[in-house]
């Protein structure tokens, strides 16, 4: 086995790691939604263009925020979880056992549970990761629908009435509300003291 200076070996090893084209496209796309940044390496002569863009971006952002605040809570939750689900970020814990996941989510103020609306035989639990809903720490459980094979995300967080107002409560006979966002359906409900949000592909 030939040997290398450790510096050269480290450079070669790290340089061998690179983003795939799909990942680059995703990151470029992520940046393209932001218009209020001065592009890296842009020469000074074009900065006035960037300044104008910033002013326009501020105006658009202001309009957007005004519109955003007009969104109802269920719409904001639906938009947030749909966006989060689409990213399909790597699972922090992989298991088909809810008990295993309950032991993993030690930073939560609650233990993830099964919902009466989801039949265990219909879904296979794949794992979970931490996330947040409207700034409240939550658990994201990833499920596979046994009939369609499609991946779904089930979000659970502690139901706090002062944060999550006017959401349907199963115990009071109400049915989940469905929000359409990002090509998905998101069912939202409150059950056993937890707020649930379940993504589904639009039929």
């Amino acid at each position: 086995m030939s040997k290398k200076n450790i510096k050269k070996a480290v450079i070669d090893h790290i340089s061998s790691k690179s983003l795939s084209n799909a990942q680059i496209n995703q990151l470029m796309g992520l940046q393209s939604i932001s218009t209020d940044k001065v592009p890296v390496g842009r020469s000074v002569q074009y900065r006035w263009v960037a300044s104008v863009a910033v002013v326009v971006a501020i105006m658009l952002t202001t309009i957007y925020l005004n519109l955003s605040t007009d969104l109802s809570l269920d719409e904001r939750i639906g938009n947030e979880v749909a966006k989060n689900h689409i990213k399909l970020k790597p699972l922090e814990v992989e298991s088909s056992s809810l008990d295993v996941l309950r032991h993993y989510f030690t930073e939560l103020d609650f233990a993830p549970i099964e919902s009466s609306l989801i039949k265990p035989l219909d879904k296979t639990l794949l794992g979970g990761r931490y996330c947040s809903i409207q700034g409240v720490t939550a658990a994201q459980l990833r499920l596979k629908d046994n009939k369609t094979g499609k991946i779904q995300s089930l979000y659970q967080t502690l139901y706090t009435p002062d944060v999550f107002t006017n959401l349907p409560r199963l115990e009071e006979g109400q049915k989940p509300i469905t929000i359409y966002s990002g090509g998905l359906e998101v069912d939202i409900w409150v059950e056993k003291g937890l707020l649930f949000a379940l993504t589904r592909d639009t039929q």
Partner: protein
Amino acid sequence: MYDKDTLQKLFRYCYALTCNEQNAYDLLQDSLERYIKSDNTTNQPTAYIKRIIHNKFVDDCRRQKIVQFEAMEEENLPTDIDMQALESIVINEDLAGKVLQYLDPGEREIVYFWAVEGFSTSQIAEQLDMPRGSVLSKIYRMRKKLVEHFDESSISVLEVRL
């Protein structure tokens, strides 16, 4: 907006921290989102996002209790220690990945700035916002733990300076 080359460099920095390609991508994506959401108008966006990446990684590690980021213990260091302490090490050419895995994230970050970015100890100290003595201390420990952990057939020291 970061171009493709810059994104690749940032990804490699994330990889040096996480030692896992999927986690590196995740870290880069989250940091980029954080950067976009921030209202910073820095004229050094690459340095700024590296700071975001570093801080997010440290936060994540603390939250997930992956590694403890603790203050360095004082120890008696040789007075002539510098990057040459690492430079003198030669390893089997396929061992780099295992070496990085064996180092803790803080050590890997130093190795990254030294090897890939070509930083001096003073520049690394400035980048990581730590005393130069702490950087030297970590280098000393790294060299020691590498030589002790890996057998002589896979790692050796060309020049003994310690």
